[in-house]
């Protein structure tokens, strides 16, 4: 089901935006380098910036249409916005910030106040002044405030970029909860591969104001990893699987990916849980035969798909159990192993180097 249908032209600073894309349920990431026009695009959807022409339809309502001179003001659009810099009202308490849409915007939230507050872990900060909150808390209040405005669509403009690494990992689980429990479609702007990998169901790639590619997250990120000019350190893939066993003594969990099993470290996982793994290409090694006596716990049978040489390195695309894996090895290793497409190899994966996130199946 299409929730958002955008087809607009406009200006963002020095360049033209000419963008058409659609977004459905779940999280759609607008992904691309800084200054690609992603934030301006969000402003146009929210109604705080005006496109030159085109149309924006959200939840079946026309928000903007240059052909019929329709241009709803932001307050009539029913679109939530979480800004990079939280933008809490400094003269109001956390509680009054959270309820702003109710007392100032006359919106009736379908979600209970208490429910949103506990979802975001804000119970004991309600009477605090925004200036006394940490960066992470501020961003949580901003998210709660937007949710309580009962939006048909939630826009998030790099909500984690103003936070340090520790704060980011504090917020990410909340975003994951929102994504699965709030049931609101989210348009998420980011230039961080790791955020997109963890949160997005669909990725729309934006460069210089234009859509260059779009599709399911795993497919787009795998394609990106192979693309020339992308940052090889960020290249990686998304794998989805479910937990089969948990070893609480060693804090490890076994994940089934089709017929393959991989063992990873992590707490808080239970059998049956669906998880999403992000495996960076730099963390995958290749062997042409299984080896004993290694500290590396995962050796997965795979088939070589494609090899892209890049100076001293080679990016190897592998297929295992229907999913894609990227391995970044040296060109020299690639030659010594005589890797070629169609060859059967073993992908070696260290248990400690995989980012794992809980993923409840989306109710679609």
């Amino acid at each position, binding site marked *: 089901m299409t929730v958002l249908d955008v087809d607009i032209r406009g200006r963002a600073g020095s360049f033209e935006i000419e963008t058409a894309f659609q977004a459905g349920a779940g999280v759609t990431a607008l992904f691309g380098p800084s200054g690609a026009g992603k934030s301006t695009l969000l402003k146009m959807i*929210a*109604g*705080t910036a005006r496109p030159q022409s085109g149309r924006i339809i959200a939840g079946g309502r026309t928000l903007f249409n240059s052909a019929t001179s329709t241009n709803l*003001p*932001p*307050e009539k*659009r029913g*679109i*939530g*916005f979480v*800004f990079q*810099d939280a*933008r809490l*009202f*400094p*003269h*109001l*308490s956390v509680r*009054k910030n959270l309820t*702003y*849409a109710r007392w*100032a*915007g*006359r*919106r009736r939230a379908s979600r209970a106040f208490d429910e949103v507050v506990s979802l975001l872990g804000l119970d004991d900060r309600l*009477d605090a*002044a925004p200036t006394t909150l940490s960066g992470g808390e501020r961003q949580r209040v901003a998210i709660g*405030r*937007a949710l309580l*405005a009962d939006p048909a669509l939630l826009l998030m403009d790099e909500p984690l970029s103003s936070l340090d690494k520790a704060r980011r990992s504090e917020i990410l689980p909340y975003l994951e909860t929102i994504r699965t429990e709030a049931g609101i479609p989210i348009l998420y702007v980011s230039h961080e591969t790791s955020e997109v990998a963890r949160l997005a169901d669909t990725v729309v790639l934006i460069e210089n104001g234009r859509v260059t590619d779009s599709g399911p997250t795993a497919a787009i990120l795998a394609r990106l990893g192979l693309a020339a000019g992308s940052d090889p350190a960020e290249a990686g893939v998304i794998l989805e699987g479910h937990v089969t066993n948990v070893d609480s003594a060693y804090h490890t969990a076994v994940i089934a990916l089709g017929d393959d099993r991989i063992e990873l470290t992590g707490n808080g996982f239970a059998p049956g849980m669906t998880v999403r793994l992000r495996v960076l290409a730099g963390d995958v090694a290749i062997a042409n035969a299984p080896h004993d006596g290694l500290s590396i716990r995962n050796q997965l049978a795979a088939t070589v798909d494609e090899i892209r040489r890049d100076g001293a390195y080679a990016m190897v695309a592998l297929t295992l159990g229907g999913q894609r894996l990227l391995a970044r090895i040296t060109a020299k290793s690639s030659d010594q192993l005589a890797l070629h497409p169609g060859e059967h190899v073993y992908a070696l994966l260290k248990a400690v180097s995989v980012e794992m996130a809980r993923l409840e199946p989306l109710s679609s």
Partner: protein
Amino acid sequence: MGETELSIILLSAKVAFTAILCALVPAFAVAWLLARREFAGKSIVQALVTLPLVLPPVVTGYGLLILFGSKGTLGQLFENLFGISFAFRWTGAALAAGVMAFPLLVRPIRLSLEAMDRGLGEAARTLGASRLTVFFTVTLPLALPGIIAGAVLGFAKALGEFGATITFVSNIPGETQTLSLAIYALLQSPSGDAAALRLIAIAVALALAAIVASEYLARKLTAGARA
């Protein structure tokens, strides 16, 4: 404190309060225009607003006499439209005080509007607030410290205004003789020193009280809005 002193203080308070109350809304509007809008002639508006601060008060007073005197164009307009005359009346003293205090009102309000994060308004709009609601729930409360600072500064100026007032509406006991004018008049007479000193003490006390009250008010209002 004698009866004359009391009536002088009450008159001064009436003049200063009227001046500030009437000047506050136009001062906010001008401050908002200067802080938030770009328009042709902005620098001229800015110069006009600052003018009473740098012009000799006698000149401002004379200008008011020409414009708002009983034969002045604006004076006749007000007389015909609202039945308000300014010439040699306390209303004229209030007008002179308001004009002299105007730049002092505008400046802090303008600064507070400029310091405000414009993104807050955008955020409020996405939460369902109309422009008008944003003004009353975000812009105005956040500008409040600036408004209070301006009002106190302006009130002090209005209370002490001398040059423009005496030029425009003269020094009429019971009508236009405010605190400063009364002190001046007493100092002109050989036996007025003691009485002048009493008025001077009162002027100092009033100024101090105004400052303390504004501090208290500002703190109370910012705390109250948050609860």
